[in-house]
C-alpha cells in the first residue's frame, strides 16, 4: 500500500491534488474567514515552515478556483468575489537582481519592472484561460489598447491586438531582461544600457485590474487578488519595493503576502524609508498563533486532514475510530509490573544514604519509605524524602512522617496532605521517572491527541510523524488500517516515528554553516539542562519543558540565538510572559518544541516554568567554553540531587 502521508509539502502536489487534499479550518467561514480574500486591506500571512501557507494561498488562486468551479467558473468567480493571481516568489530568483557592477537603485528599478511584467502575465494568462473556457465577453482589442496605454513609452508594436499577443509581448520583454542579466559578464555591456523600462512601477499591477473592472461587465465587482507566496525569498530592497505597492494599493487590487515567521526583512517603503503600518495599511496574522491558541479546533483540523488523506487511499475511518487506533501508555499495567521487581529508586536512595548514615538508620529509613502495596506512592515517598534531605531535616524523623502521610493517603485518599500535593502537580513526572529508572522508553507521548499536541501547531510535523508511523508499521509488516482487523498502532511505532520526525526536524530547520551548528548545540544544551532538572531528585518545577527569560537584559548574541530558535520553532514563544518576582519586569516564556521534548523526555504539557537568570542563560546559550557548560551542569546536578552539595558526613543513631 502506498503511504498516504508520503507527500508533506504543498509544492510537491499538482493543483488537482491540492484540491483533492484540501481541508478547511473548522471554524465559521473556514480559512476564507481568516484570509478575507475580498478584503481591501493587504494582509501578511506568517507561518512556520510546514504550517500550510502554500496550500492555503494556492487555494485562493485562479487555477484552484478553476478546478473547484469547473465549467461554472464564471459564476464561481462572481460568487467568490475575487480573481486570484498566485506567484511563488522563489520562482523569480530574486537573488539575480544584484551585483554585476550595477547600483542598488538600478537593480531596484529593474526588479520592480520585472515583477510588474511577471505578475501582469500571470493575470493575463488566467484571463485568457477564463475566456477560452467560458462565454465571458471581452472586447480584447479595446482592453489590450487600454492596457498598452498604461505604458510610458511611445511607439510600442502596433500588432498587439489581443490578450494573447499582449501576454506574449510582456513575456518577450521579460526575456530581454533575463538575457541581459545572464550575459552581463560576457557582453561587458551594462544592464542599464540594455534594458529600457517601458512602464512605471505599479502601473500594470494596479492598472490592468482597473481596465478590466471598467471594461468587462463580470469584473465590475470583482477584486483582483495578488497572492505572493514565499516572500522571504525577496531581498530587503525588493521587499521595500513591494511594501511601497502595499502602501499605494488601489482598488480593485488586493494583496496577500505569505512568508515564514522570519521572512519579513523590512517594513520600510521607498517613501523616505517610512514603514507600512500594521492595522492601518496592512494586517498581519500568524498561522502558528491561530493553530496554537485554538488547540481544540486545531485538533479537529488535523484529524480532518488525516481522514482526508486516508480517504484518498480508500480507507474510510471516523474521527473517533482514528483516535482509538493509537495506543496510549498503559501506566497501570506498568506499575503493576513493577510490584514484583527490584525497586530501583530504593536501591539508588540506599546507595546515596549509605554514604552519610549508619547502616541501622539506613535500614529504618528505607523501611519507612518502602510501601510494597503501591510503587507509585512509594516513589512519592522518595521524592518527599529527598526534599526533606535538601532542607537538612533529621532524615529518620522525616522518613517517619512520610510513612504516616503515605499510609493516611493510601487509606483515605484525601485531597490534602503531602502525597496529594505531589500527585496533584507531579503525577506525570513521577510516572515518567519510574519508566526512566526502569530502563523503559517513556511512552507518555503516544496517542493521537498527544501526537497532535507535539506538532505545536505545525501540520507538517504531524504529517511527517504519520508518514513514519506508516513506515514503521510497514517494517513491522502490520497493515494498521486493515478494515477486517482491528489493529492498533503500537506505542513503540509511535515513539519510533516521533524520533524519526525529530531527526528530520533538526536537519530541516538547521541554519546552514557554522552558525547552524552553534545554534543546534544551544538548543541541545537547553534540552539537556531541562532533562537534568526534570529527572533530578527534587525537580524545581512540575512538567518541565518551559523556560522564562528576562529578554531585556540579554546581549545581542544571545537574543539573536533566541530569535532564531523561536523563528524556526525550536522554541515556542508563549503568549503570556510572566512577571519577574523580584524585578517587577515582564519575562518572556518559551516552551521546547514538542518533538524535541519527546526526544529529550521532557513534558509536553505546559505547567511549571523554569526561570533562567542571566548567568544560567549565558552558560547554556553562550558559554565561553564547553568546560564552563559542563561545570554549570555539574553544579546543577549537585544542587538538585542528593546529597545536594553537602559535605560528606556520617550520621549515627546518637547524633
Amino acid at each position: 500500500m502506498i503511504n498516504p502521508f508520503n507527500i508533506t509539502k504543498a509544492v510537491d502536489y499538482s493543483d488537482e491534488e491540492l484540491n483533492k487534499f484540501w481541508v478547511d479550518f473548522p471554524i465559521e467561514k473556514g480559512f476564507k474567514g481568516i484570509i478575507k480574500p475580498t478584503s481591501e486591506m493587504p494582509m501578511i500571512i506568517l507561518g512556520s515552515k510546514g504550517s500550510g501557507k502554500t496550500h492555503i494561498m494556492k487555494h485562493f488562486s485562479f487555477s484552484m478556483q478553476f478546478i473547484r468551479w469547473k465549467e461554472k467558473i464564471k459564476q464561481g468567480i462572481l460568487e467568490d468575489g475575487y480573481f486570484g493571481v498566485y506567484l511563488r516568489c522563489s520562482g523569480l530568483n530574486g537573488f539575480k537582481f544584484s551585483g554585476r557592477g550595477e547600483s542598488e537603485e538600478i537593480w531596484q528599478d529593474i526588479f520592480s519592472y520585472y515583477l510588474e511584467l511577471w505578475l501582469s502575465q500571470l493575470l493575463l494568462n488566467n484571463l485568457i484561460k477564463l475566456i477560452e473556457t467560458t462565454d465571458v465577453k471581452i472586447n480584447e482589442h479595446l482592453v489590450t489598447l487600454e492596457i498598452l496605454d498604461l505604458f510610458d513609452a511611445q511607439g510600442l508594436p502596433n500588432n498587439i491586438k489581443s490578450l494573447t499577443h499582449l501576454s506574449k509581448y510582456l513575456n518577450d520583454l521579460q526575456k530581454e531582461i533575463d538575457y541581459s542579466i545572464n550575459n552581463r559578464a560576457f557582453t561587458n555591456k551594462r544592464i542599464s544600457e540594455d534594458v529600457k523600462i517601458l512602464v512605471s512601477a505599479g502601473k500594470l499591477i494596479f492598472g490592468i485590474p482597473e481596465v478590466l473592472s471598467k471594461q468587462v461587465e463580470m469584473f465590475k465587482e470583482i477584486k483582483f487578488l495578488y497572492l505572493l507566496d514565499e516572500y522571504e525569498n525577496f531581498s530587503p530592497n525588493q521587499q521595500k519595493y513591494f511594501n511601497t505597492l502595499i502602501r499605494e494599493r488601489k482598488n480593485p487590487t488586493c494583496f496577500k503576502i505569505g512568508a515564514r515567521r522570519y521572512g519579513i526583512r523590512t517594513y520600510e517603503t521607498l517613501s523616505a524609508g517610512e514603514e507600512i503600518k500594521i492595522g492601518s495599511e496592512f494586517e498581519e496574522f500568524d498561522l502558528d498563533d491561530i493553530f496554537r491558541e485554538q488547540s481544540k479546533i486545531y485538533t479537529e483540523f488535523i484529524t480532518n486532514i488525516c481522514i482526508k488523506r486516508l480517504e484518498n487511499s480508500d480507507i474510510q475511518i471516523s474521527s473517533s475510530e482514528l483516535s482509538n487506533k493509537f495506543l496510549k501508555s498503559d501506566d497501570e499495567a506498568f506499575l503493576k509490573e513493577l510490584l514484583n521487581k527490584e525497586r530501583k529508586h530504593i536501591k539508588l536512595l540506599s546507595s546515596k544514604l549509605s554514604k552519610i548514615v549508619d547502616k541501622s538508620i539506613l535500614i529504618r529509613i528505607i523501611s519507612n519509605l518502602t510501601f510494597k502495596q503501591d510503587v507509585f506512592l512509594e516513589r512519592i515517598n522518595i521524592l518527599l524524602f529527598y526534599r526533606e534531605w535538601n532542607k537538612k531535616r533529621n532524615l529518620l524523623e522525616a522518613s517517619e512522617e512520610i510513612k504516616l502521610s503515605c499510609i493516611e493517603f493510601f487509606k483515605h485518599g484525601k485531597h490534602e496532605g503531602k502525597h496529594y500535593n505531589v500527585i496533584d502537580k507531579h503525577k506525570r513526572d513521577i510516572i515518567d521517572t519510574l519508566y526512566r529508572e526502569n530502563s523503559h522508553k517513556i511512552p507518555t507521548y503516544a496517542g493521537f491527541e498527544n501526537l497532535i499536541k507535539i506538532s505545536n501547531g505545525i501540520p507538517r510535523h504531524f504529517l511527517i510523524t504519520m508518514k513514519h508511523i506508516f513506515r514503521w508499521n510497514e517494517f513491522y509488516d502490520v497493515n494498521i488500517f486493515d478494515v477486517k482487523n482491528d489493529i492498533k498502532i503500537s506505542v513503540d511505532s509511535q515513539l519510533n516515528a516521533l524520533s524519526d520526525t525529530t531527526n528530520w526536524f533538526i536537519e530541516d530547520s538547521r541554519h546552514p554553516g557554522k552558525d547552524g551548528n552553534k545554534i543546534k548545540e544551544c538548543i541541545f544544551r537547553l534540552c539537556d539542562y531541562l532533562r537534568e532538572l526534570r529527572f533530578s531528585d527534587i525537580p524545581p518545577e512540575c512538567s518541565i519543558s518551559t523556560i522564562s527569560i528576562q529578554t531585556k537584559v540579554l546581549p545581542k548574541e544571545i537574543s539573536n540565538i533566541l530569535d532564531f530558535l523561536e523563528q524556526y520553532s525550536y522554541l515556542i514563544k508563549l503568549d503570556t510572559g510572566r512577571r519577574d518576582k523580584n524585578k517587577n519586569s515582564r519575562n518572556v516564556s518559551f516552551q521546547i518544541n514538542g518533538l524535541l521534548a519527546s526526544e529529550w523526555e521532557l513534558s509536553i504539557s505546559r505547567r511549571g516554568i523554569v526561570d533562567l537568570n542571566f548567568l544560567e542563560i549565558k552558560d547554556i546559550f553562550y558559554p565561553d567554553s564547553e568546560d564552563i557548560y559542563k561545570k554549570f551542569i555539574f553544579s546543577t546536578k549537585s544542587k538538585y540531587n542528593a546529597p545536594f552539595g553537602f559535605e560528606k558526613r556520617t550520621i549515627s543513631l546518637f547524633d
Partner: protein
Amino acid sequence: MGFNSKKNMTQELFSKFKKKIKFLNETVWENKANNKKLNNWLNNFLEDEKIHALYLLTQFIYIGDYQIKKMLVSIYRDFYKYSQIEKIRKSNNNTDNIEFINIEFDKILKKTRFVALGNPSESSSLLMYSFRQENDLSKKYFITDNDITTCKDDIDEFIFIDDMCGSGTQAVLYSNKIVPLIKAYFPEANIHYYMLAATKEGKNYIKMNSLFDYVDSVMDLDNSFKCFDVNSRIFKNSDSCIDANFIESFCSKYGKDLMVSIAKIMFPNKPNSFIEDWANSNKLGFGNGQLLLGFNHNTPDNSLPILWYNEKDVNWNPIFIRKNKKYND
C-alpha cells in the same frame, strides 16, 4: 549512570541498529528484510550475540535492481563499446567523425555475441535480459553457451557476463571448458568475461589462469570488504562494545554447522573428515569469502553463510536468502 547502564546502552544500541536497518530496508534493500524476517534471523543467535549480529547486518552491502541495471550499462558502455570505439579511432587516424565511427561500431556489434552462462534458469540469463533491455540491444545478439557451436554467423567478439566472482576458480574452470570450444569454431574471436562485482584476488586469478582475452568487473572488492580481514572496513567505525573477534567466533561456529550440511549435499560420498575440513575452510563463505554482500536476484555464496543459508538440514532462518542452490566450490 544508573544501575542498568550496560543494559541501557545495549538497548539503545539495539534500537539504533534496528532504526538503521529499517531505514536501509525502505531505501536500499527493496523491503527484503522487514521486522518479522529480521527477528526470525536474530532468533538464530544466542541472546548476547544478537546485538553483534544486528551490527553486522547494518554493514551489509545490497546491490538492488537499479544499481544492477546501471552496472550493466557500465559493462556495455565502458568495457565493450568504448574499447571498440577506441580501436576504430586508432586504426582510422584518430578520426572524430561520429557518423563513420557509428557505422564501424555497428559492423562490430553485428559480429558480437553476448553469451549467458549455464542454463536459462540461472542468474546469468536474468542478467542478460536486463543487459539487453538497459542497453537497448537486439535479441539477435544474444545466445547461450550451448548455441555457440551451432552459430553460423561470422563472430569476432564473445561477451560473457556474470554477477559475482569470489575466488575465481569457477570462472577458470568454465573458461577451460568453453574457450577451446569457441576457438575451435572462431579461432580469431576475442573472448570477454565481465562481472558486476569481483574480489581483487578472484579477478587476478581469472586474469592469470583463464583463457579469456579480456577480464574486468564494475565493482572491485579488495580485502577491506572481507569481514574479518585486518583491514576490514566493517569494524572501522563501530561502537565500542562491538567485538569483531566475538562476531568472528560465532559466525564461524554457526557457519561451520551450516557448511557441513552443504558439504553433505555437494559431496555425498566423501568421508566425514573431508566434510569437516571442507566446512572449516568455507565456514565464512565459499573460498573463505567473508563477504557481506547480496544482489537483488541472489546472495552470492562467498558471503557469510549465516546470511543466506537456506537448506532443510539445519534449522536456520536466512535474512538474504540464496535462491539458486547451486554451490561453487
